């Protein structure tokens, strides 16, 4: 099994998500990634090629020929021992030498050429000199190769909705309007919640659901299925970490988040305010906070509320169509990849439609079983 990973590290979006547990597990499944990666790393016949893109896949007889392009891997992922000497010494501090998001997995580090001083013409070679195993080589070049494969599994993941596509929420105008994914990353990498504008903890937080979901006007005629779950878990986490924070959630319909949804929702209603409806244009107040207008249904009038932080629950969009074309996959009416198991084309993860981490895992395992069956039949 050969895996072409476009990025530096395996794990996809889930590798950047934090644990959303309070004292009790929130059942988000993000923690399972570390374990899955450790299991995969030990799985002999799986070979992962990093920084590698599939340029195209051609049918050749009963199988396929894949054309792969690997960008220069200045830090050899197969040689890296994860000691972190390069990361500690890099003058660009965490930007040029990137640390793997999942702990204890190899490669532990990667060199992001775009952020490296050498990209700006400087003759820095601190990392190469400090690496005890000589894993860093600046003369690495782009490589291309071809590979004959019998089945193709497309798992490029989803693309989050671009919040600039909903200008009324002012994501590109106000630094305190962030996406839920940005909040996730903040909680994972910093372990705490703060307003990007001034670094202080917010006193009030609004979640806006269905940004880029269930919206025919922008061609998103589907529910992204995971946002109610992550937003409600994040809301609960915020209330747990900082019980004084006021949290409101603007929603259209709350979707089931798991087996204990009814209990979870009932408990959360005691802690945060659920407001039915889609807010209007967000504006900044004089003291730099965010004014969110909305229609109050219980009072039947226009209202507005002021928040320190607004979190947009961005919908899950289909992957880059160019990727589907390169792989030779058809698209469904929403632009997600369609499997063709009879022809040896399979999908895994959210590339075939929005799904949770738990569902991705389960469907991924089912896909693996189907691939095995397909290979046996041939």
């Amino acid at each position: 099994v050969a895996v072409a990973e476009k990025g530096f590290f395996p794990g996809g979006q889930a590798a950047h998500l934090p644990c959303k547990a309070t004292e009790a597990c929130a059942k988000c499944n993000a923690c399972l990634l570390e374990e899955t990666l450790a299991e995969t790393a030990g799985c002999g016949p799986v070979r992962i090629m990093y920084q590698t893109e599939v340029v195209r896949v051609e049918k050749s007889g009963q199988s396929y020929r894949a054309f792969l392009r690997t960008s220069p891997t200045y830090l050899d992922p197969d040689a890296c021992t994860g000691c972190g000497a390069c990361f500690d010494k890099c003058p660009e501090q965490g930007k040029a030498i990137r640390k793997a998001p999942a702990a204890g997995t190899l490669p532990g580090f990667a060199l992001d050429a775009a952020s490296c001083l050498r990209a700006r013409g400087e003759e820095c070679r601190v990392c190469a000199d400090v690496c005890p195993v000589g894993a860093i080589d600046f003369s690495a070049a782009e490589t291309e190769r071809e590979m004959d494969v019998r089945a193709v599994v497309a798992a490029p993941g989803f693309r989050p909705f671009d919040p600039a596509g909903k200008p009324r929420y002012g994501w590109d105008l106000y630094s305190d309007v962030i996406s839920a994914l940005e909040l996730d990353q903040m909680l994972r990498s910093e372990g705490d919640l703060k307003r990007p504008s001034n670094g202080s903890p917010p006193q009030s937080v609004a979640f806006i659901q269905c940004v880029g979901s269930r919206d025919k006007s922008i061609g998103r005629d589907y529910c992204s299925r995971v946002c109610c779950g992550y937003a409600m878990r994040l809301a609960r986490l915020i209330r747990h970490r900082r019980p004084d924070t006021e949290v409101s959630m603007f929603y259209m319909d709350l979707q089931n988040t798991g087996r204990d949804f009814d209990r979870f929702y009932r408990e959360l209603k005691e802690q945060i305010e659920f407001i039915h409806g889609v807010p209007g244009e967000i504006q900044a107040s004089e003291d730099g906070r965010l004014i969110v207008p909305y229609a109050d249904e219980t009072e039947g009038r226009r209202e507005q509320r002021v928040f320190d932080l607004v979190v947009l629950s961005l919908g899950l969009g289909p992957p880059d169509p160019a990727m589907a074309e390169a792989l030779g996959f058809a698209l469904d009416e929403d632009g997600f990849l369609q499997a063709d198991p009879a022809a040896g084309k399979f999908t895994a993860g959210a590339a075939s439609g929005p799904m949770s981490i738990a569902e991705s895992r389960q469907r991924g395992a089912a896909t693996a079983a189907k691939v095995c069956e397909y290979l046996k039949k041939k």
Partner: protein
Amino acid sequence: MTAKTYILLLESHLSAAGLSPEAFRELAAGWDPETEVRLVRNWTAENVGTFPAGARIILGGRAEPLPWFNGCGPIQFPVDISGTLPWLGGDPEVNAAALLKGALAAAKSSPIRERVTLETFPRVLVVGSGDAARRAARKSSTRGLETVWASPEPVEPLEGVLVLPGAQLSGSGGFAGRFRIAFETDDGPAEIQAGAVILAGLDKSRVAEPGNLPNASTLSAFEAELGQTPAPAWTGKGGYKVAFLAGLDRSTSTADMRRLLEAARTVAAGGKARAYLLAPQIKVAATGLERLYTQARESGVIFIRTPESGPTIEVLEDGSVSLKVFDPLARADLRLKPDRIVVEEPPHPAEELIRWAGILRMVLAPDGYLTPDNVLFPGPSTTRHGIFAVGPARGTDSNEAIEAEIDHALADAARIIDETEMESTHLAVDKGRCAICLTCVRVCPHNAMGYTHRPFSDPAACQRCGVCAAECPMDAIQLADYTDFQIKARLEALLERPKKDGLPRIVVFGCRRSAAKALAAAPKPRPADVVFLAMPCAGRIEDDLVFSAFLGGADGVLMAACHEDNCRTHYGSPKARRRFERIRDLLAETGYDPERLGFTTTAPNMGVLFGRTLADFSDSIGAKGSSPINGED
């Protein structure tokens, strides 16, 4: 056969610890001249080399064993230098040496691993009646697995499957791969020997509350009516009105929402009747449902948002029913007098499941189903290895999900049946100490212990959590790699180091699944002197270990467990919390400051937060000064 011990160390870690290869070899020879030191560039199989069977390998600088050696002989002791070293205060050279010395002592006292062969019963047993059970039995049989289907209710025969009709579960014995399940059947008692069991529950659903109203139909009865030819002729004043009531008792599942939307759309599109769908939330989180919702609206279905408790329902004197909902846009109550009310039949756990859980010795989830709501027990996995629950036994009602559960269960079942050779658990029961009180049999979270003359653990079912070893009142059980001696050897080696920098010495007993991984991911710490000891499960941390840490010189001890409901041992983590509270009480009784013992929960992906927790705990202990056991510094 004497087993040789090897120390494998990354060159880079050695240099990072400030040790020369020669100096390290000398140190190792000082501990044990028989030990072979191999310095490696990285952890690839070629670099690491080969080892004789039974070899004991210390992996200096790894948090996890090397996967390609698993189950094929050598015993591995990972010593996480990169994750642990930054947290030990003082001299890195002394620290690395102490870590490895502790590992060496632990390795030398480890028994040699044995392989055991256990015959499995090549048979899958499906228990339950209804569609999910039939599908599981059919799929199992088409996969080439010998299949027995025990159905409490009469069922049609199924080709290639031995069917036991009227089979009531009456007893169970054995472990994964070798279950013996007893039934009372129409033809008398029967015992089935099976490698794996799939519980498919009973097809029972409950009619939502308003189902007893006049004019009310269940969704399935209404669907049948819609499917009739000729189409039902409905008449009513001002057109026949059908009100679909959803989400009253509990949230509507997406599978039921799909059926409701389809039925409502059919009614509205027929043009002979008007369809109303009353629900607190429209559940559209499934493929194509948002589109179906749009189509239903376009077909003329009227959607009315109700409070969570549903509309106000009144039965009028003439026997008709009135539904009342406040309409926020009109600022008035909206009243509807439907000619027909259609209610859902949400799935609910059958009472039988309680009895099944008891007989099969498995944990019943708080919602009454047979799979725990715990992400570490994926899909149909239950708290008993080799027993699976699908469909109505775990509250699943979508066909797609039930198919996936059956596939998952059958794949695992086939693996369990095929796996006849395995490593023995090395759960040693000391015959001299064992009082046969059977505490271990009762507390085992995996129900992996049985007893004949003495308690024993089953190698296939044992998950090596060590809860039994911690709970045994006679200290008669030892878990390999985590015996009292081995844990204490590691602890002692690390506590022997001289204290430096005026930092409090903190001992952390942490779950290897969560806390050990979080530690490895934690960023460079504030100055600290944190001795981390990985435990197979927080449930393994026993009083004695905590007291040993305090007596050995710890100024503070922290127990680090997984979050509630995220414990691979199911209740190892809650057990650890209760034990923490008890030890605190014991400490207080002796006049020792109970605040010096802490408890925390963490997840493997929360390195930053865990690092902060450790540093904060270290600070709080530092503020208390040195432990009175250690005297004044």
